[in-house]
């Protein structure tokens, strides 16, 4: 599959939040204002990209040679947890400004399904290292797109009269559902029409 096809697949056709429901907790939790949403999206994109490459390397250079594929889940989550910690320390050292912007979101990312999800999906789809890298970026961008759109909708919703029972989370889910409905317009035929498959 070409890299552009992978990008389109993970951003639009199989959007991580709206189609595959990976990373719904931060999607609902951190989408109250657009500034936080952009911060969260940027952090997730950063981590999915790095984690995709690192877990890919660990799977093919460490687990496969020793026939330890069944340890995939255990290894990946530990690698992701340590990676997030490491990134936090590195960013704090290199760029205090970036740390200030992303710092509070990084610890939350360890338990974000999107990161472990893309690591496992890369392996299931038998991507090579470049495809895994692009997959990581695309998964993060898809997450960012959904969470930024959602935060803008929620900022508008705050000013609208919403029935008491629907206020907050329920109306957010329903808006997300309508967004997912719009995203259904993207499907596999898009790739065929663009001559990418």
């Amino acid at each position: 599959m070409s890299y552009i096809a992978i990008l389109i697949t993970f951003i639009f056709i199989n959007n991580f939040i709206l189609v595959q429901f990976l990373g719904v907790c931060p999607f609902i939790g951190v989408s109250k204002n657009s500034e936080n949403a952009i911060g969260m999206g940027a952090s997730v994109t950063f981590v999915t990209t790095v984690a995709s490459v690192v877990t890919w390397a660990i799977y093919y250079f460490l687990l496969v040679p020793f026939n330890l594929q069944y340890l995939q889940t255990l290894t990946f989550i530990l690698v992701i947890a340590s990676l997030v910690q490491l990134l936090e320390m590195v960013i704090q050292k290199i760029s205090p400004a970036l740390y200030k912007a992303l710092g509070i979101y990084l610890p939350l990312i360890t338990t974000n399904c999107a990161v472990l999800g893309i690591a496992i999906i890369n392996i299931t789809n038998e991507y090579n290292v470049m495809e895994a890298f692009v997959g990581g970026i695309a998964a993060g961008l898809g997450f960012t797109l959904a969470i930024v759109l959602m935060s803008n909708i929620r900022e508008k919703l705050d000013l609208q009269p919403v029935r008491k029972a629907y206020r907050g989370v329920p109306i957010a889910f329903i808006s997300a559902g309508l967004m997912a409905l719009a995203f259904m317009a993207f499907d596999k035929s898009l790739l065929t029409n663009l001559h990418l498959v």
Partner: protein
Amino acid sequence: MNKGSKELTKGFFKENPIFVLMLGLCPVLGVSTQVSNAIGMSAGVLFVLLFSNIIISGLRHVIPPSIHIPAYIVVIATLVTITEMVMHAFVPAVYSALGVYLPLIVVNCIILGRAEAFASKNTIVDSILDALGMAIGFALGLTLIALIRELFGSGTITLFPMGDFSGVINIPWFYDNPIRVLSLAPGALLIMGFLKAFFDWNSSRKKDR
């Protein structure tokens, strides 16, 4: 009501993990297309939650506080791997239907959340009751969503095949008039939103009384 049964039943409705605590939503939305998948997922979560609560509660004086999260994750990931292997061997259909959501039990907030909030501070017996209550609450919520989505979305109820029974029940009227969107991705989010609104309305109505 004595303390033990309170620990057990609080997860059913009052602190239902899906509708009240809003934990572990990714698998809830992802696998609720068929009732059989919902039951398979609930069984996986029950197993992992029960044993992680037992192990973590048993080790609560041994695990140093500074590394407690990594230690919990190792325990949970091991249990998830066991679940994956058992399901792959005995119920391959459910295993392939659950797909990526099965390994994702590791990052399911319910399990780490209960380990952190409950099992690390309470005795083994209380932790077992808490795990059972939470897992049953999770199963109830997930099965409810799956039932609504499958019944209205495709007019069937899929259970496990046994003997002559193929495992799929067709519901007469709904089968001919399905609301397809409910069994697709947007349906999960819409149903979740409406059910959450219903639960919020219900609890606020009780408070007002």
